[in-house]
């Protein structure tokens, strides 16, 4: 049986991510958890969730999954929240952290950019505006609400990579799509029916990549 492999580096609650993929894949895939590099070898697709700080995330990933970068480039990959942010070149969290540089652009501090009336973290339901026609957005209205929890926001440099944007005083990149990679700032596993639809679309798209 094919595996959807969720990376566990000890920094996030995997319960909902695992359950949402299980629900959507409808027993066609086995949803596994990877704690070592070897676990990733068997993966048909890789999911990288994450909460917390970019620096400790990068450290743990570098230590526990030294070949992750290579896997991301070669297997269908779904990054969520911090798993989206670390794809960029640099995050300005904790005085700056070098990230994976798979997507051109950087991750910056909301509190330095937005009106003081707005709260940080950006937490709650906000509109995601699709920038591309793509399988990943099938059966999801062009502007739909998804659930966010984050204090840093990403700006992708290349329009080509931007799959959606969201406005929280400023416009930021809320998802990217490139080659075999889809990643989003919001939490599809907490975004009700459109979140589940997105996960389902990702699986469909992954199958078409092979």
């Amino acid at each position, binding site marked *: 049986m094919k595996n959807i492999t969720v990376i566990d580096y000890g920094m996030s*609650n995997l319960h909902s991510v695992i359950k949402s993929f299980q629900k959507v894949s409808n027993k066609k895939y086995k949803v596994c958890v990877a704690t070592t590099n070897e676990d990733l070898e068997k993966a048909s697709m890789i999911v990288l969730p994450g909460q917390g700080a970019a620096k400790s995330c990068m450290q743990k990933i570098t230590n526990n999954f030294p070949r992750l970068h290579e896997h991301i480039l070669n297997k269908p990959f779904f990054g969520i929240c911090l798993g989206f942010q670390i794809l960029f070149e640099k995050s300005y969290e904790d005085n700056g952290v070098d990230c994976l540089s798979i997507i051109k652009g950087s991750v910056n501090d909301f509190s330095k950019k937005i009106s003081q009336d707005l709260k940080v973290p950006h937490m*709650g*339901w*906000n509109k995601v505006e699709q920038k591309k026609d793509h399988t990943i957005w099938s059966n999801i209205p062009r502007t739909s609400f998804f*659930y966010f929890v984050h204090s840093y926001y990403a700006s992708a440099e290349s329009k080509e990579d931007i799959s959606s944007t969201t406005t929280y*005083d400023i416009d930021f990149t809320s998802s990217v799509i490139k080659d075999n990679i889809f990643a989003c700032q919001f939490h599809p596993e907490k975004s*009700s029916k459109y979140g589940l639809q997105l996960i389902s679309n990702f699986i469909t798209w992954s199958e078409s990549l092979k």
Partner: protein
Amino acid sequence: MSVAKRIIPCLDVDKGRVVKGINFVDIVDAGDPVEIAKKYDKEGADEITFLDITASYEGRDNILGVVEQVANEVFIPLTVGGGVKSFSDVRDLLSAGADKVTINTAAVANPDLINEVTDKIGRQCIVVAVDIKKSIEQYNVFTHGGRHKTQLDAVNWCLECQARGAGEILLTSMDKDGTKEGFDNEILCEISNKLSIPVIASGGAGSLQDLYDAISLGKADAVLAASIFHFGEYSISQAKDFLRDKGVFVR
């Protein structure tokens, strides 16, 4: 543009079943948590809150099972509270599938708990529930499900919670809870204006206008209600339509 104002149905849970207290005393059974949560998700609830109302007094293992069952089926943010005493209680609830945990009595007894959770897990997952009742000179904070009066002033206590790292305040007016007369928008507004973290209004919702008033007059970021939704008087989607028509940014 801010985030959408949230509508949060609250499920008071006792021994794995959903109940709703009238002024925290009189209890009516209103159903199975998983089925109710699914129904609310379908109707467009932005989040679901479970409060284990008898937990300060009795065993609380049931709630972990409820959270896990609901989290397996319902994919929106889940907030859980009631009887949370320690960091390990918080961690257990998060591991069972909760996204946020509310603490009340334990926060008053040991305010450092707020700092501990924030430092170890993050600000977004801790909600301090503040039960308040008006007296002549101030609003007093109550603990133990409304049974114990403290000398803490509501406004000062909310400010302290924020300073210690609370992600949100769930403010319940005990004077209004169960009355269906509307929220206490005066104190709600005062606290919302003084805090920079979100304030969830609770206690007193009897009509859709009450929900609107809590947002417009009370400046609440979210409204929590139970009985008006549980007994089918209004659906969440009706509430959303009502608010949207009045110009509120809702999902």
